[in-house]
């Protein structure tokens, strides 16, 4: 009888763990999550090892505005995420570095640039980024504690 009870308890515990894993997945996928950023491309706004709170609702509703900082999948490597600022929306005229020319942002795309324009691989290199790659919008920085700040405009 004790074995049966142990099995029953284990199953119950696993069931709860599964339920909470699902709730966590949905929260992080549809509501918001935490992101730790690394790399120099967004200096001086963001530095390596800053922790950010992001939300997924605005990109899903396609209500991004110019100036928003977003997390997106890197167009050249889907396993990597990039953190950049939206500088232009469809229809805006932008300048590209390679090949050096100006172009209009096409429908369904955004133009992403890092704040550290001298050290950032962004839309100036790989062109407009499809909206479908944008994962979330950065709300605020929560770490380090002395630099807690809202990052929306």
């Amino acid at each position, binding site marked *: 009888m004790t074995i049966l009870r142990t099995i029953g308890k284990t199953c119950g515990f696993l069931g709860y763990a599964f339920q909470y894993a699902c709730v966590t997945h949905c929260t992080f996928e549809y509501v918001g999550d935490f992101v730790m950023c690394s790399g120099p491309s967004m200096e001086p706004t963001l530095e390596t090892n800053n922790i950010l709170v992001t939300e997924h609702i605005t990109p899903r509703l396609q209500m991004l505005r110019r100036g928003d900082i977003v997390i997106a999948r890197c*167009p050249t490597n889907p*396993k990597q995420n990039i953190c950049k600022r939206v500088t232009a929306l469809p229809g805006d005229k932008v300048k590209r570095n390679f090949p050096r020319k100006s172009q209009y942002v096409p429908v369904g795309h955004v133009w992403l640039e890092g704040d550290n324009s001298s050290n950032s691989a962004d839309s100036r290199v790989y062109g407009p980024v499809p909206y*479908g790659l944008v994962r979330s919008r950065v709300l605020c920085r929560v770490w380090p504690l002395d630099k807690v700040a809202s990052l929306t405009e």
Partner: protein
Amino acid sequence: MWLKNLFKSVVIGLPVGITLVDTVGYVARVEGISMQPVLNPESTNTDYVFLSRWAVRDFSVRRGDIISLVSPKDPNQKIIKRVVALQGDVVNTLGYKNQFVKVPEGHCWVEGDHTGHTLDSNTFGPISLGLINAKAVAIVWPPDRWQNLQSHLPANRKPVAHAI
């Protein structure tokens, strides 16, 4: 009391369902004629396919796979196409601005089977692997069309040059 139980089931059941759909896969209706003759062979009936999210969890696709992806032109729309070339391959395009295109890193070239009646990479260029949503593995409805979808590439659509 039963209202409370119902509420509890919804609160727990909904996230479980969404998570399963997100990680395992789901059934979707195919609209349009762009993948004829494999999908929707007659425009009168519509096929339902099982889209496996698990198969593309690390963004690995092969040439010939049928995938669903977020349209680069409209993020609300999902389109279903066949992978023709992977990164590094050179494709002989059908009406794109350049006759030969080398697929850039992290991208792939997708086309509908119904050449001339499909909006695919020949219009919008190579697509980023990050836009891939799922891989279509089988037709599940109607019952007489029940079959697995083969990974198949017509000989004339093979890339001109393969990357390793």
